[in-house]
């Protein structure tokens, strides 16, 4: 299994541990991730909030490079996933846009490259059975709240859940299945796809503290001992802001927030140093046995 890997900017900065743990897990499972050479930003919110052509062209450039490698694209960042997949859909459905994009990026791209989130790769290509068999140090029934946020499951046609198979984007189960195989016990809760406040983190911190605080409190009330996420921004809001959230209400929350790849990596026996566990803000060792 070989994929073109689109890291996106967060992986190289705030969410470096997400990239570390993703690459370590991939290595351990025999998944080859080849970083797209000379990749550029996916455009993120600023592009698609301002200019449809820019929002399609930036991802298209990266996808075109992947196409030349003959590989499907894997990404870890939820926003990158959403932007790449949305551009892919728009370009494949709209001939005029396709022509404009070709003009902008200087190469023809038809939308034919498959865009996958790393969760999908594990679930569909590796398969849960193989994952379970690869686990060497199960997570010992760790109660984890799997949190998806908005961009992985919405809109329906871009959802990482297999809608055509009857799966429900309002109740994704992908991360649950993966972490169950890793020996955790994901809890069922109602806020899996709630909004964390996303990039308002910078402009309207108060809103984000309220929204992310609701998520953390709901996870805790639902019996979770930690949260697993698959999005760098969600992670920032839930982990980095957690102390802020606590001081705003005076209520102690204390839920470690992991990238799901960190938990999986532990189950696969990868040392914490390769998973960037030390980079987490909320003390992870209150729920993990130290290694």
């Amino acid at each position, binding site marked *: 299994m070989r994929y073109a890997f689109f890291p996106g900017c967060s992986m190289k900065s705030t969410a470096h541990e997400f990239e570390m743990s993703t690459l370590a897990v991939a290595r351990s499972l025999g998944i080859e991730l080849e970083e797209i050479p000379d990749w550029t930003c996916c455009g993120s919110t600023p592009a698609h909030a301002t200019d449809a052509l820019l929002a399609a062209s930036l991802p298209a450039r990266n996808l075109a490079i992947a196409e030349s490698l003959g590989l499907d694209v894997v990404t870890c960042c939820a926003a990158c996933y959403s932007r790449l997949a949305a551009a892919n859909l728009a370009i494949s459905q709209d001939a005029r846009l396709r022509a404009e994009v070709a003009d902008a990026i200087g190469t023809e791209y038809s939308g034919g490259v498959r865009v996958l989130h790393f969760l999908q790769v594990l679930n569909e290509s590796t398969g849960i059975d193989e994952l379970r068999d690869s686990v060497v140090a199960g997570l010992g029934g760790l109660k984890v709240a799997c949190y998806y946020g908005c961009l992985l499951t919405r809109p329906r046609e871009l959802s990482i859940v297999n809608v055509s198979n*009857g799966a429900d*984007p309002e109740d994704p189960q992908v991360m649950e299945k993966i972490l169950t195989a890793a020996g955790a016990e994901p809890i069922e*809760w*109602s806020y899996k796809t709630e909004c964390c406040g996303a990039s308002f983190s910078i402009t309207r911190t108060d809103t984000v503290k309220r929204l992310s605080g609701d998520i953390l409190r709901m996870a805790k009330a639902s019996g979770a001992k930690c949260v697993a996420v698959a999005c760098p921004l969600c992670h920032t809001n839930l982990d980095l802001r957690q102390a802020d959230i606590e001081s705003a209400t005076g209520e102690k929350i204390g839920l470690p927030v992991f990238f799901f790849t960190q938990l999986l990596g532990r189950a696969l026996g990868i040392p914490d140093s390769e998973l960037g566990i030390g980079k987490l803000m909320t003390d992870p060792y209150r729920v993990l046995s130290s290694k």
Partner: protein
Amino acid sequence: MVCGGGIAGIQSALDLANSGFKVYLVEKSPTIGGKMAQLDKTFPTGDCATCIISPKLVECTRNLNIEILPQTQIEAVTGEPGRYRVKLRRKARYVDITRCNACGDCEKVCPVRVPDEFNRGLAAKTAIHKVTAQAVPNAYVIEKRDRPPCMSACPLDQNVQAYVALIAAGKFAEAADIIRKDNPLPLICGYVCHRPCESECQQGRYGEAVSIRALKRFALEAESREQKAESRQTSPAPSSVRREERIAIIGSGPAGLGAADYLARKGYRVTIFEAMSVPGGMMRAGIPDFRLPRSVLDSQIQDILDLGVELKLNSPIGDERSIDLLLDNGYKAVFAAVGAQKSVGLGIEGEDLQGVTPGIDFIKQVNLAEVESPDSPVRRPVIGERVAVIGAGNAAMDIARSAVRLGAKDVTVIYRRTKREMPADPVEVEDALREGVRFVFLTNPKRFVGTDGKLTGIECVKMQLSEEKDASGRRRPEAIEGSEHVLDFDEAIIATGQVPNMGFAAGTELAVNKRGLLDVDPVTLATSRPGVFAGGDVVAGAGTLSEAVAAGRRAAESIHRFIKGEDLAEGRSADPRVWTEEKHLALEKLQLREKLTRTRRVAFDHEIGYTAEQAMQEAKRCLACGGCCECEECVKACLAKAIDHDMVDTIEEIEVGAIVLSPGYEEFDARLRGEFGFGRYDNVVTNIQFERMLSASGPFGGHLMRPSDGVEPRKIAFIQCVGSRDAANERPYCSSVCCMAAIKQSIIAQEHLPGLEAAVFYTDIRAFGKDFDSYYERAKASGVRFTRSMISRVVEMPGSKNLRLSYIKDGKPVDEEFDLVILSAGLRPSEEALRTAAALGVELDAWGFCHSEEFAPVTTSKEGVFVAGAFESPKDIPETVTQASAAAAMVMQMLAPARGTMITEKIYPREHDFTDAIPRIGVFICHCGINIAGVIDIDRVVEAARAMPYVAYAENALYACADNTQDRIKELIREHNLNRLVVASCTPRTHEPLFRDTARECGLNPFLVDMANIRDQCSWVHSNEPNAATDKAVDLVRMATARAARLRALPTEELPVEQAALVIGGGPSGMTAALSLAEQGFPVHLVEKADRLGGRLAPGALRDGLVSRIERHPAIRTHLSSRLKSLSGHIGSFKAEIEGVGGLTNVKFGALIVAIGGTERKTTEYCYGLDKRVVTQRDLESMLASGGIDLPQGATVGMIQCVGSRDDDHPYCSRSCCAEAVKNAVRIKELQPDANVVMLYRDMRTYGVNELHYQKAREAGVVFVRYERERPPQVAADGKLTIDFVEPELGVPVRLDLDMLALSTGTSPAIDNQSVSELAKVPLNKDGFFVEAHVKLRPVDFASEGIFLCGSAHSPKTTAENIQQGLAAAGRAATILSKKTMTVGGQISKVDVRKCVSCLTCVRVCPYGAPEVSAANNKNRVEIQAAKCMGCGSCAAECPAKAIQLQHYVDRQVEAAIEALLERVASH
């Protein structure tokens, strides 16, 4: 043929059968009744749905001309209209309906629980069950699904699900019996089987597989020695036939023993030749004691030897004694069952060093150490300190663990792949790890290193897994160059493979394959030499124990056939185990629907085994993938011998003239609205589930509680339009019924739990039907909260499992928690309907509903096929019933010449006159399986009955209702000259007609029969007090016999029927009714007060077509400018005077149809009449129809709905105005796109597919503005026409200049309603519309028999609906007109004229108008008209002079029963 046994199908079938047609009622499920049977109550009366539908179900079964075909589907239709050939698939029921008496004994023993679909998964039911207590046909059914995966995976075809289910039910001995049936070495398997069943277990796909092997071991060890001995005698019984043929078996391993067991049970003389000094083969030599205790092994072998099998130890076959010799010495057949006893070496350097041991040699030494034999002294091996085990199979694990036990300091397993690829059972690996065995993965030995001929270490190389896969489907390991290293060991045991020793074949020519194994036929296991068979390791290489046993049994079957000279292969296949991926998916879906319970394995100590509690707990985790598990406990329990597990589907072809399609609907799958959490949140239920929760026969016994915790909810919320008006989910239409259903459910829920807060979140309340709005108002008055808001999401709160709803109120977001949320899931065509429609080839609309033309509402695209009910479009019960009768009328028209040609009528012998005979009562006491006899001492009741006065004969009956008992009763009636019959059994509601019928067949008047209900009212309710219950049963029988002695034969008489009809009203409904009856050949008088036909029908093709057909029809006599002057008589024989321009006409007829329509209401509001720009919606429609309207550029047209409707004067909704207004608005936009259309409405009631017009109007730019009743718009006409209103969402006042204003003024009752009501003595409601006999099930009947109603006289409706109702009325009337005579009398009221004082009390209380004061006959005394009396007894109860007695319940009969009851009290 009527397809679909819901209320629509039932009504069509009854109407057709009652008017002289033979009907096949085809239903896919095991019972008829459809969705209505699932409802709790019906509104507005609060009638129990079951109570009102049950009589209809029973009527269907009793009708000789209705043949109910349950579990039947239409496969294909050929032929032409009037002569269709329908191919039917009749599904296997596994219960013979004609034998099943529904006693329920089977249900009590069934160990399998499956989700109860009828209760929408809120409860479980047994695999054999009756769908409901009131199921029709009243018989059980078995739910079977595919063969379960565990059973499919088992080489021995063990019925895993059955024994697991029996263990769960605590029936351990029965479970053991099932296990032993297919397994001669059951307990050995219980210890060491490789558990292919668990690998396939579906519970394992979600969590952990059920511990099947451990359960098997438990079941076998749980039964006592006595039980075991007893079972072995019975299952499977050794053949009583002793056969002389001798069979030789080589090897006493699992294959050999498997064959020996099978053959010995067939009676053969079996000899096993075993080379070793002990029996058991590789089971003994290869499996260590700590996994398979020797005591278990020995006893299992002994069990087989006990069947008479001869065992010769130390008797190798080969050079000295060859197979040939055996055959020459009289053995008829030989089975070679030699195990894989030889280790395969690694073929690397140093294997000959001391300290390198072949695995088999080692393990044999360990396992056989305790065996002392002079020839082969076997000693426990001496073990090294640092031991390497090379290999990763189960043998390697056994060796490693044995080495630990022998005292090795360090045991290391070396494997070239990873843990993931290990072939060993993971449980064994875990055990090895726990015992301290170390594992070195991705490492391969290259050579053994030693000094002085002794092993010192192994040189290994590191491996990696390549992308490539090898033949086994695993990634191929590759050596990493330069990674060689030496590991220190002083002993190495090679366990990488084993092969059989082929020495046994010496001297005999047997074909061998490339692998060096015997070449056999895969199906028969025959070798190249006739009479010699082989199986197990010698054929398959080293295999598993259960596979070897299976091979032994397979070979034994071949040997049996060989000796009998039969074909060896016939009917057999190589491997019957199939469980396809497709089935996996199907199961996954099924379980998703059933809400899979993820459960964890019950922990247990591997060595000790389960306790009974643990085993039952673990067994209960089984998902019962196969439905019925075929344990056959029900077969044992069924005394009527009704159960047959071998039934198969059958195909049948039936010829029919016409087809009515009424397959009903399914509710929208609420899971598709994932934001509401249905299926995830316990306390989010659908409306149908809620009906079941409210129902007394539902999962909670009618006690309203939350599914999550059984607590009574205090606050509930309804979310409307789930899967209705929902374009995103391809359900853009309105489902029509959900608003009223939610209103009803909230009212009923409040009745269950006073103080319950109920909130309904809706878009529009569509209370468009008759009396719906007043019901809506009633709900509001009783505190149900109605909030106009779409709920975007439901959040389950942790802990409480309450549901938080977020909505907008007064422009602000509100969060509110509820205990329970009900989703009003919409209607969609059922899968079955779509399948049937495809088989018939009828056209469907975009959403799968059956296409029909607007003004031919029950006609499909295929001639001779009609449609009724929700499959036509979403509709409620009354409209469904109406359509069913309409479809029946269409069939009657089409098949009129065939009427009466295929019907069955029962002929009874002449009745004997017993008036003066002394009563001779026959009493029959029913056991009802053990239903009654399980509690009541039947013999004592029979004894007591024999002593009762006038009892000439008494006996018990196993099932009183069974066919053979009926014959016996008839015989006894004749033999003992019985003239009264008393049956003590179940309820007269279902069974009295049967016993009356039996009596009639013997010449007894049917009223000489009485019943005592000793089941429902005795054994069921007093099941804990058998003695007292028996006393009570005796009392009940004494009462019945006392009453029976006083029963009198009641006469009935036949009255001629006037086979003609009178229809009042020449509008669309009246014309349609008249035409339908005329087409059926009945003369019709059509009375119209105007001077032309057509009523309120607008001029056009529809009106012209109907009028000209009427005028041309010879059977219709039209009376224009006429009215009804008088009406007398009763059903079947009415007389009337028609007053017309030419004077009076006297007519006679058998049925009357009231179709006098309604009128458009006029108004003085909103400047109507003051300004000619203000028109009614109907005026506007005429303008649009006649070529359009003249509006200036950019004109603004206003529309106001509910003008003079839904207010205090006219509290009802006129139903059709919203749809009409919307259509007109769209038409204006089409004609003049720049015109503005602004419609002010209160609730937009575009029900059903009209919703699409509403959608279209919004898309076309029509502006819809809501107004509250309290704040109506203001219109001023002062030169300019202006309208003022407040935009409700923004709260801003708006003024518009209008060029035109159209008012929807609604429909008023016809002026003549009052006079017709008085003439026909039929009632009007408070709004002035006629009241039908029953709002749900008799929508076009009056309570007075023989009189029907249709059209707007009933309530306001659209033209299409009027036409439909006209047809329905015709269909109903035809059930009377088709009969030449009718039977009256029997159980009716009689007046004693001497006591009557003509106080008229009876006239007032009778709902049917039966009592009549007749001056002529009776000197002004009351007379009950027999044809009108329904036998309800109201008059008898009310008569102050006690002048009226209800026949069959006269005072002296009731008194006799009471005296009999008091007899025992008095004796105390």
